[in-house]
């Protein structure tokens, strides 16, 4: 009996031992099978995209911006032919370990979905390759502008190019003369006593306003903001009606670091005399190009402004191309494009407009060399001259992109968006009926309107009642 019980216990233990052994074997077998399956699947797979970074705003404002693609493993060098960008944009590709960098050598269009595709991306010592694709949408364009009130406070507004209405009010104050954004701060010049100006900085988030000290009795003729950084340039003149004005030459150029000591520093020319300016423009590299009152064109570094580099002499300077490479100017023989890197000049002979000879006025240059110019053309019927805005590629026939109704109006300053996608122009719809706003500084007609035009299509995309446009992003 005892032997039978012992035998039964041994059988049971043996059965349980076999059960454990079977479970162990099945588990090992199953895991080996799974490992084999995922080994094969992994071997058939190429590198994968883990994360992508791109600044959707800056990529529309500056060339050389990067799309950084972080891969799950180091990848082999990628040939330039493997890269495609839709819509088309000039770009290059480089590899640093597991980081693939796509650099855009031009500014991208606003509010556009781009698809970047890299074919045949492989890992070192592995045959499998993969196609990497990343989509991103660039920031839409917006405008900052001034809308003056007939009574009460003037307003600074921000309006999206593809939006509707007046836009969003970002600041209200009486007698606004100029307004420019600088690194999260709005710098506003407004009317002071006796034709003077008061300069203020307005924090974009809190709305807190601080006064920036100006020399006594001066008027701000221009406020020039850099593409990056906090040092702005000011063109200052003594106010005619001011009392106790500090000694200052008319149109003195000064620098003011609103992120630093906030001291206005008038600049001097090579003779030690005050540097006086008709206009000034910041280049993308931070340098300042100044058109002096004595009609020379100089270049200076705001960090070391005592070293001036003369680059030309022109009675008129219209501006700097959006890539900062060329200056649009004019002399007694007509328009000139000056290459800032080489010093070479190119004559800008206006093309025919609707078959008629045109006489060029203010001309702005795009990075690709297109000229956006205000030209005067004779009306074939009346014989009177009309001002129209044209896009001229120098091919002999310019394309009209803006004109006023029945040529009754006039066109004011022209400003290209940083990526040359849009152009905004101040329009006075009817000169004969125009009434000035009566301001002592920067007087404008009450009917002044900003017209935003898509440069490629010539479509009018937005009109806004105001002036003093500055480009930004939404």
């Amino acid at each position: 009996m005892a032997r039978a019980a012992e035998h039964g216990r041994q059988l049971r233990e043996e059965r349980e031992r076999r059960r454990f052994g079977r479970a162990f074997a099945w588990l090992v077998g199953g895991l080996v099978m799974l490992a084999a399956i995922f080994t094969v699947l992994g071997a058939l797979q190429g590198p994968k995209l883990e994360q992508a970074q791109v600044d959707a705003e800056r990529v529309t404002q500056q060339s050389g911006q990067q799309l950084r693609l972080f891969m799950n493993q180091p990848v082999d060098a990628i040939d330039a032919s493997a890269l495609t960008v839709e819509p088309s944009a000039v770009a290059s590709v480089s590899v640093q370990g597991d980081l693939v960098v796509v650099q855009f050598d031009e500014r991208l269009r606003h509010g556009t979905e781009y698809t970047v595709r890299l074919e045949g991306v492989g890992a070192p010592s592995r045959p499998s390759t993969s196609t990497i694709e990343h989509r991103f949408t660039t920031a839409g364009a917006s405008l900052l502008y001034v809308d003056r009130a007939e009574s009460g406070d003037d307003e600074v507004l921000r309006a999206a190019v593809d939006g509707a209405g007046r836009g969003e009010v970002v600041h209200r104050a009486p007698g606004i003369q100029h307004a420019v954004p600088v690194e999260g701060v709005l710098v506003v010049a407004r009317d002071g006593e006796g034709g003077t100006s008061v300069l203020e900085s307005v924090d974009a988030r809190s709305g807190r306003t601080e006064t920036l000290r100006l020399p006594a009795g001066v008027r701000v003729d221009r406020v020039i903001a850099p593409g990056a950084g906090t040092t702005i340039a000011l063109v200052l003149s003594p106010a005619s009606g001011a009392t106790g004005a500090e000694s200052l030459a008319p149109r003195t150029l000064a620098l003011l670091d609103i992120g630093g000591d906030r001291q206005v520093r008038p600049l001097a020319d090579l003779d030690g005399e005050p540097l006086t300016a008709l206009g000034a423009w910041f280049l993308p590299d931070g340098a300042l190009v100044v058109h002096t009152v004595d009609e020379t064109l100089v270049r200076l570094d705001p960090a070391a402004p005592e070293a001036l580099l003369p680059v030309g002499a022109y009675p008129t300077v219209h501006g700097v191309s959006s890539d900062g490479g060329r200056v649009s100017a004019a002399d007694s023989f007509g328009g000139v494009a000056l290459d800032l890197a080489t010093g070479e000049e190119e004559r800008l002979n206006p093309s025919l407009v609707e078959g008629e000879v045109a006489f060029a006025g203010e001309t702005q240059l795009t990075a690709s060399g297109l000229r956006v110019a205000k030209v005067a053309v004779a009306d074939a019927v009346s014989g009177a001259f009309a001002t129209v805005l044209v896009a001229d590629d120098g091919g002999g026939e310019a394309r009209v992109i803006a004109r006023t109704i029945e040529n009754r109006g006039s066109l004011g300053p022209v400003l290209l968006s940083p990526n040359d996608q849009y152009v905004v122009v101040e329009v006075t719809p009817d000169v004969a009926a125009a009434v000035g706003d009566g301001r002592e500084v920067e007087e404008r007609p009450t009917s002044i309107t900003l017209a935003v035009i898509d440069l490629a299509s010539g479509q009018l995309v937005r009109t806004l009642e105001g002036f003093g446009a500055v480009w930004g992003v939404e």
Partner: protein
Amino acid sequence: MPVALETPQTREARRASRRWGARHLVAAGLGLAGIAGLIALRATTAGAGPAGLPDAAQDLITLATSVIIESLPFIVLGIALSILVQVWIPEQWLLRILPRNPWGRRAAISLFGMFLPVCECGNVPLARGIVRRGFTVPESMVFLLAAPILNPVTILTTHAAFGFDDGILVARLLGGFLIANVLGWLFSLHPEPERLLTGRFAEQCRIDDGHQHGTRAEQTIDLFVRESSILMPALVIGAIVAGAVQVAVPRDVLVALGSDPLWSVLAMMALAFIISVCSNVDAFFILPFASTFLPGSIVAFLVFGPIIDIKMLALMRTTYAARTLVQVTVIVALLSAVLGLVVNYVV
């Protein structure tokens, strides 16, 4: 006035305890001296230029020092938490409520590490203690395998090193839980659980008991010395090995190895087995390899290493039979490899 008499047994126990303490003090001192020495060497040779150490040696010292500096605060934190739990929190507090269902019970035990935040070195005596208190051998195994990974210090250091990148942290936690419970289930089928243990287990328990005596302050100091003596030398050796591998092995070899889905996993598991670095600091140790090795291989390292390495096998051999350890090693290795391969495929 009562007279205290010392028996030969208590005298021998006291001597053994002193020898044990002295060994730990020497080891902790060596570890600290190693850390100080590496940092001093880095500081004195960095500015020497061409006249100083060769480039490879400079790189090795820099890499090793960076691992130490990154991980040292977390090691000290781990030791402090370990002391807090083992000395200052009542033992029975963790054992009060456990589900009766075997799966639920094992799942709950695998989370014990959340309240016992010590690395794998400290878990072996704790696992022995669990068996002594009436838990089954498979349950002690579940705790032993899960606790090094599923504990707050390891989670903290892994998050500090990788954040939520590539799902490494999540895969590590899920992997640790899965491996512990699968093995717990497997060994729960064993007809003779006591045969999973070694005959010396009772002796080990007795020695472990001997170290719980004394005041709480004495236990705190004793534990601090013991933990430091295990962790500090491991940290110095691990940091030097990590630096040496990166300096000695050509980068293209590392890249080729690291970008292969299978070889990267196997290489990382082999590395984890050899270097035996503690789970509290292994995330910092492996961080420099993250740019050349696939995420799945990093996960395999972080899951396999805390459970199976040279040091852990030596420690576990004090408790479990050799046959048991072979079976555990096979299953853990396969599960870690599958986990790594799945992560490599999915991420």
